[in-house]
């Protein structure tokens, strides 16, 4: 099968609006940025990114940070995207949305969709995991969103520390009125290894999800660990129910990630390793040419090396690709199989 390259109409984009954040989550991949308030995309640069995204016929952007809702031009950026008929997924911890005025401003924007990253399931654990005492406010926000007619999503990150209470957490989410939650695995990133016992993590997730399946709340779950580490029946069950996703934008070479200074990143966690510098491109044409150049394609080839020869004969190769590349900074497959 031909390897897809960056092309018009293919892909999705992320705009990193800032690095500052009003929480300090333990597992945050952005922690080594120091949450620097000076690292903030200017409004002019945001418009340039949106122009490029529009010219590349990409129809959706993810607004991320830091905490994107803290950006001073947050609504201006969404409005500019609306002019270009681009929808915006706002990846947020939700804290700013607690404010009634801010919330109503977001409701007025039909092209903006909040994706609330729920950090935990109680007052105590919110304080422990994020440093902020805001569980009641987040609960209030979720109830407000459920009553509104705004389309929104909720996500939850599973780490080694919270995996054993996943069932309890999902039950709490169900009691709040949520019907579906997007689950994902914690990223280990340079300086912050959050899945440190992979074998146990895999066992715990399998156990917990079997219990979660007794609840009425639904989920979909994005896998970043190699498929071969999991019980086949477990995977087949998720597959049959159509709630498992694998491979990421990096593996599919479909993501266009702008850092705050317009450097291009291969992955949101790899902000210290840009692959294209902002001064190397001006517009969609020069950027697309760069992304499709041999130089960049060779970077992807090296990034996407497989962790084992066993991968080449694995039935899941096309749907796994060896798992998330970040995993192989800290782990060896031989230790796991």
């Amino acid at each position, binding site marked *: 099968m031909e390897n897809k390259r960056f092309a018009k109409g293919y892909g999705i984009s992320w705009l990193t609006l800032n690095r500052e954040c009003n929480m300090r989550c333990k597992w945050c991949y952005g922690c080594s940025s120091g949450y620097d308030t000076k690292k903030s995309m200017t409004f002019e640069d945001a418009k340039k990114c949106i122009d490029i995204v529009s010219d590349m016929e990409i129809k959706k952007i993810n607004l991320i940070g830091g905490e994107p809702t803290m950006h001073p031009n947050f609504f201006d950026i969404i409005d500019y995207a609306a002019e270009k008929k681009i929808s915006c997924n706002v990846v947020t911890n939700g804290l700013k949305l607690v404010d009634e005025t801010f919330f109503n401003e977001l409701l007025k924007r039909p092209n903006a969709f909040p994706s609330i990253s729920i950090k935990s399931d109680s007052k105590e654990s919110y304080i422990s995991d994020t440093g902020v005492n805001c569980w009641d406010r987040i609960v209030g926000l979720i109830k407000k969103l459920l009553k509104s007619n705004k389309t929104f999503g909720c996500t939850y990150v599973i780490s080694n520390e919270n995996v054993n209470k996943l069932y309890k957490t999902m039950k709490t989410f169900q009691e709040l009125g949520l019907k*579906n939650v997007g689950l994902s695995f914690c990223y280990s990133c340079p300086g912050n290894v959050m899945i440190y016992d992979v074998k146990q993590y895999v066992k715990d997730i399998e156990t917990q999800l079997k219990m979660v399946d007794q609840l009425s709340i639904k989920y979909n779950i994005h896998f970043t660990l190699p498929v071969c580490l999991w019980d086949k029946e477990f995977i087949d069950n998720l597959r049959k129910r159509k709630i498992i996703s694998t491979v990421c934008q990096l593996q599919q070479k479909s993501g266009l990630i702008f850092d705050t200074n317009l450097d291009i990143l291969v992955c949101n966690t790899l902000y210290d390793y840009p692959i294209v510098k902002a001064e190397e491109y001006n517009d969609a044409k020069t950027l697309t040419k760069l992304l499709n150049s041999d130089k960049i394609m060779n970077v992807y080839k090296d990034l996407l090396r497989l962790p084992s020869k066993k991968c080449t004969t694995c039935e899941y190769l096309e749907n796994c690709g060896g798992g998330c590349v970040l995993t192989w900074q800290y782990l060896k497959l031989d230790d796991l199989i």
Partner: protein
Amino acid sequence: MSIYEFINTSTATFDFVDIAVSNLKSKILKSDDNCNDCDCDCDCQSRCDCQPNDCDCMNTECNCDCDCDCKGYDD
């Protein structure tokens, strides 16, 4: 820093296999069995948030252009 500083510390050293990877599971999960008219065909795992004429894929990694002609569902 150069991306190769990252690459060179990886334990994944086996040669790249030139394949086009794709998502293990494709169709959008409908949020309710009463929604029968959603014809979203994006290659995504996210749920189809069936609201009348307002279907949108909530997966941040999906590049679909869902245009669901859904009639919504009853609570």
